[in-house]
Structure formats: structure tokens, C-alpha cells
């Protein structure tokens, strides 16, 4: 039977086969010529289908419907407003529903301990510090371990901001490279030690000011894949509203895709390299307890490839690994479906040459660390590492680029690049639209201030146009 007609092949490229089935199929494939081309083509096609579905509007319920669902459910077990008013664990237990205490007496500590601590910013810090104590040693040496042995039959390039040159932030330098071949398997390894098993769903989130953040200490949440597919849908839609003089319908304006619809002046990769990772860390302008990580990826531009559609396309997967010894919680701004950002559910995505990809993460530092303060002691200063898995069209075979972002990438708002300033402004605007002015601490004035200082060259006038939109929206809002 022709292997191409076998449903198993489709199941294989969609990662639906179990290990035995997959390896027996791989064996079969290795005997037939051109099968790697076949697999790659099929995977690329699967990515295109996912991309096609992404063209659809992002339907969701109305805010009122959401509010109705949540109105009866309470999850908080904290008193007062300031951190020192938090109940002791014993007191909190006493206050819990009596019936629950009786029926679950034995495991109530185990069950509620992580929740109680995570419901306030101060207590959260203690909880995770305890949880992570064991992981601490593993994390410190993770980098050097990766450097010593190839972790997978895979090419890994490590780009390290710790050893970057003088203008380190603008362009990080390559420090290490390993070459190999084989299928891309994810995750290859954890840079910051093994995550804790997820015993209970309440382990998975941490809460700050009523908003939820993913907890990188827990299994399945160490990595976050960020989307790299291009869509100007949200931008175009917003533009229509603005041209018509209407307040934007937030239903279909997606913050992540809006941020990515603008052009950024990210540095290009060195000749011969496929990607350049630009990164900055700064305090979140609308919430001092949070920090923002701005990741700007630039794909190499290969002019001679222009021509047929398919040649412009590459398959990639971009992800961030969070260091749980530094980060208590994280959230990708504009993330529509966190389930998709789980590496195990994340198929490769398509990307164009010369394209930029922007991701903004809000993070809650562990121990309330102020990243702008210089490190007091030596140790692992990595906050996150960015990982790009891709297939090199010329050299053939899967590759990975790992680039670490450390404490040292933290800057004050005076030093922040125009690109980060602008992306943050768009994010703030998106959050304002999404929350309809409630909930988010961003304000139109703050968004305007950020954008005003971030126009840069603005070759196509996009950024000044955005500034006009914000002003218009503010007026429309005031009239409402």
C-alpha cells in the first residue's frame, strides 16, 4: 500500500500515534526515498489549515454573559486589603466551610495550602518559594549542563545576554552552537530544573488583583508558546471602525494580533543566521507589582526567494521557558487561548521571511524582586529563555535557537526602546478596549503618553495613525 494513502501517516504528522506505532512507522519511512520531504510537506500543510481557521473572527461571549457565569462563584480566602491582614493558615482553615473541613479533614492542608497562599501577592511569594526550594539547585547549573552535552539529536544554538557585547540589548551575540539532526521533540529539556507535578487544578494558577497568571513551577506550564502567524485582521477591523467614527467593537479586535500588525525596527540577524531575538524587561507602566517582557523576533530576509507563495513560508515554533526561581506567574498579553500556548498542544506555525514577531508577557516576580536593582549576589540571573524551533530550508533538518533573557535586560522606562514603548502602548489600548475601561489600570492618557514618545521613524505613518485612533477612541468613550 502506498504510504501516502495510509491514515497512519496523517495521524503521525498530527502526533496522534503512540510511541510504538510512531517508531514502527518511522522505520518504514526511513526505507522509502523522499519521505522526509513528504512529512515536511504534510506538516506544513497542517500548519496552513490551522492558519486558515485563525482567519475566523474570535467569537466569545458578551462581558455580561461572562459576569453572569462568575457572579456566584467565589475563590478568595483573604481578609482585608493589605498583605499583613492575610489570615494565618490555621485561621483560614477555621473559617472554611465546616462541612468541607469535616469531610476532607485529612487532606485539607495539602489541598488548600497552595490556594490560600496564592491569593494575595505577598503570601504567594512565600508559597512558591517553599514549593521551589528543592528545584533551586538544579536551576542554577542548567545553562552549563546544556552547554556540555547535546540534549537531543537536534541543533541547538544558545544566545546568551549575559555574555552579550557592549550594546548587548540591541543585538545579542552567539556564544555556542551544536549541530545534529533528527525530529524536533519538545520540550527537549528544562533549563531551570523539573517542574512540580500538577496535583490539583488550583496549583495551575496564581492570582494577583483578581487576575490570573500561569504558574511556571507547575508541570505543563513551564513553557509558553507564542503565536508567530501573521494576520492584519484586527488592525483592518479597527481601522474600519475608526474611519466610520464608531467606538470599536471589541469582540473581534485581538490584542496580540493588533500588536503584531505594526512594523517594528528590530535588528536583523547576522548573515547566515535565521532569526534575531531582541528583548527588554521593564516595570509595567500600569501596575508597579508587575513587569513586562518584550520579545521581538526578526526573521532573516532572503530576497531571492520571492516568487511563489509557498516559498515565502517557513515552519517555526516560538516559545518561552520561564524560570520559576525568578517568576511566580506569567501571562501573555492578548492570549486568546492559553491551552494553545501549551507546548504539547502547539503545532508549528507559518512565518514569512523578513517578518517580525512580537510577544509581550506580564510577569509577577518571585519575592517581589525589583529587576532594575543590580544583582546582589552571583547566581543564575536568567528570567526566561526564548526558544525558536524551525526547519532550515537550505541546510535541511530541524534546528533550535535558544536565547536567554536575564535580569540585566531590565531597563527603566527612560531607557526603553521606542519599539517596546509602542508595543506596550498598543497592549494598553487593547486592554482598555477589552475591559471597557473597567478592571484594567491602564488609562487613555497613559497609552497616549507611551505612544507619543514612540513614533520613531514611522516610515508608513502607521504609528501616528494609531495615536489618532487612541485620541478618537478616548473622545468617543467620553461621549458615551
Amino acid at each position, binding site marked *: 500500500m502506498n504510504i501516502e494513502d*495510509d*491514515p497512519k*501517516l*496523517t*495521524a503521525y504528522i*498530527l502526533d*496522534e500515534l503512540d510511541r510504538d506505532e510512531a517508531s514502527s512507522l518511522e522505520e518504514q519511512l526511513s526505507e522509502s526515498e523522499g519521505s522526509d520531504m513528504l512529512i515536511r510537506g*504534510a506538516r506544513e*500543510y*497542517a500548519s*496552513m*489549515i*490551522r*492558519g*486558515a*481557521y485563525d*482567519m*475566523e*473572527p*474570535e*467569537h*466569545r*461571549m458578551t462581558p455580561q*454573559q461572562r459576569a453572569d*457565569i*462568575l457572579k*456566584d*462563584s*467565589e*475563590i478568595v*480566602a*483573604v481578609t*482585608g486589603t493589605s498583605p499583613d491582614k492575610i*489570615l494565618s493558615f490555621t*485561621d483560614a482553615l477555621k473559617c*472554611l*466551610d465546616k462541612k468541607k473541613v469535616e469531610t476532607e479533614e485529612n487532606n485539607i492542608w495539602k489541598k*488548600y495550602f497552595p*490556594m490560600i497562599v496564592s491569593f494575595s501577592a505577598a503570601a504567594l511569594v512565600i508559597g512558591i518559594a517553599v514549593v521551589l526550594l528543592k528545584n533551586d539547585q538544579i536551576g542554577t547549573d542548567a545553562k552549563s549542563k546544556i552547554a556540555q552535552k547535546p540534549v537531543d539529536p537536534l541543533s541547538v544554538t544558545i544566545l546568551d545576554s549575559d555574555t552579550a557585547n557592549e550594546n548587548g540589548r540591541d543585538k545579542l551575540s552567539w556564544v555556542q552552537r551544536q549541530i545534529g539532526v533528527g525530529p524536533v521533540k519538545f520540550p527537549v529539556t528544562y533549563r531551570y530544573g523539573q517542574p512540580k507535578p500538577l496535583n*490539583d*487544578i*488550583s496549583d*495551575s*494558577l496564581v492570582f494577583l488583583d483578581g487576575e490570573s497568571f500561569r504558574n511556571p513551577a507547575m508541570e505543563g506550564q513551564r513553557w509558553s508558546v507564542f503565536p508567530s502567524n*501573521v494576520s*492584519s*485582521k484586527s488592525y*483592518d477591523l479597527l*481601522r*474600519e471602525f475608526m474611519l466610520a467614527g464608531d467606538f470599536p467593537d471589541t469582540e*473581534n479586535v485581538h490584542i496580540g494580533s493588533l500588536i503584531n500588525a505594526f512594523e517594528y525596527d528590530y535588528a536583523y540577524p547576522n548573515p547566515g543566521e535565521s532569526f534575531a531575538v531582541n528583548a527588554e524587561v521593564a516595570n509595567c507602566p500600569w501596575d508597579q507589582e508587575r513587569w513586562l517582557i518584550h520579545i521581538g523576533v526578526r526573521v532573516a530576509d532572503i530576497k531571492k526567494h*520571492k516568487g511563489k*507563495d509557498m516559498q*515565502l513560508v517557513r515552519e517555526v515554533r516560538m516559545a518561552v521557558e520561564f524560570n520559576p526561581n525568578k517568576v511566580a506567574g506569567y501571562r501573555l498579553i492578548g492570549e486568546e*487561548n*492559553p*491551552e494553545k500556548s501549551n507546548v504539547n498542544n502547539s*503545532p508549528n506555525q*507559518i512565518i*514569512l521571511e523578513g517578518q517580525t514577531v512580537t510577544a509581550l508577557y506580564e510577569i509577577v516576580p518571585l519575592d517581589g524582586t525589583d529587576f532594575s536593582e543590580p544583582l546582589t549576589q552571583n547566581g543564575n540571573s536568567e528570567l526566561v529563555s526564548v526558544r525558536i524551533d524551525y526547519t532550515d530550508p537550505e541546510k535541511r533538518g530541524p534546528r533550535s535557537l535558544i536565547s536567554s533573557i536575564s535580569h540585566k535586560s531590565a531597563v527603566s522606562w527612560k531607557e526603553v526602546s521606542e519599539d517596546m514603548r509602542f508595543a506596550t502602548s498598543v497592549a494598553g489600548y487593547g486592554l482598555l478596549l477589552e475591559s471597557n475601561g473597567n478592571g484594567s489600570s491602564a488609562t487613555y492618557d497613559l497609552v497616549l503618553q507611551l505612544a507619543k514618545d514612540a513614533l520613531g521613524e514611522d516610515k508608513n505613518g502607521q504609528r501616528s495613525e494609531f495615536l489618532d485612533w487612541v485620541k478618537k477612541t478616548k473622545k468617543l468613550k467620553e461621549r458615551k
Partner: protein
Amino acid sequence: MSSSPRVIDPSAVLLRRALSDFEVPLTRYAVSILGDIERSRDAVQDTFIKLYEQEPKAIEDKLKAWLFTVCRNRCYDILKKEKRMMRLEDDEIQALPSLTDDPAQLMAREEDRTKLNSYLRKLLSLIEELPARQREVMRLKFQADLSYKEIGEALEITISNVGFIVHSAFKKLREVMNQVEG
């Protein structure tokens, strides 16, 4: 300021996690069955309300399959009630992906991006022309990221049947797109 402590409710945690992870894929799925946003929103809201009434321990391991199954049943209940079991009209389906106009007309964007967009739009319209069963399975697989097993549970068909449907649809789409390309 004093306030009394409240009870921690694992159902509420599960509900919030489900909302943040699955609201959009569920609503998109409901729209694909019902064809309009209003009723789809109601079906999704009913699904989440039902989730909150469940014992979280019994659900959390199979949350995704559970949500899609319940949402699907809810959608078909609505259709039945309104005696509208016939397939969606073609023009209704076409209207979904093209809520926004062709971006190329709105502004001169980078040429490549427009090309890719139009390629993907074409692909999406081809997907919508597949037979109803293939369409549903493809959406659950490629948009909602359900596994074959989860799809099998939601649609009450075997895993190998799911594999066969995905394979046929996938192959058909490749053939048609190649013809278009060529």
C-alpha cells in the same frame, strides 16, 4: 478595613480555568454548528454554567472533551427546538470567515502578507465545502486542537474512524489546493 473570609471553591477555580482556555474555541465551534453568534453565545454560556454544577474531581482530567461534548449537545438541542436540523445555508457559512473585507482593499499592506491571507481564505472556504461530518472533525482537530480520542468521545465515533475522516479530508484539501495552485 475588615471583611470576612470566604470559602475556597475548587469548582470556581475549574470554571475560571475553563473560561480562560476554552471560551473562544467553544464559541467558534458553536458558531460553526448554529450559524449565528447570539445563539452560540447562549449555548456556550449554558455549557459553562453546567460545568460549575459538576464535581470538579470527576471532570478535570477530561475537561476539554467534556466541554466540547456538552456544548455540541446544547447546540443540537437548540437546533432541534427550532426545527432547523437542515444544514446551514451556503451563504450563511460563507459569511462567517469574511466578516472583514479583503484587507488588500482597505490598505496597501505588505504584498506577501496579503498573498498569504488570500491563500488562507481560499483554504478556509474549501474547508467549509467539505461534507458536514468531515467539516466538524476538521474543526475540532485543527481549530480546537482536540486529540483523536477527544473527538471520538465528543462525536461518539471510534478513534480509527476519526483518523480516517481526518485523513480523507486532509488529502482532499491538499489535492484541491494543488490544483488551484497549479
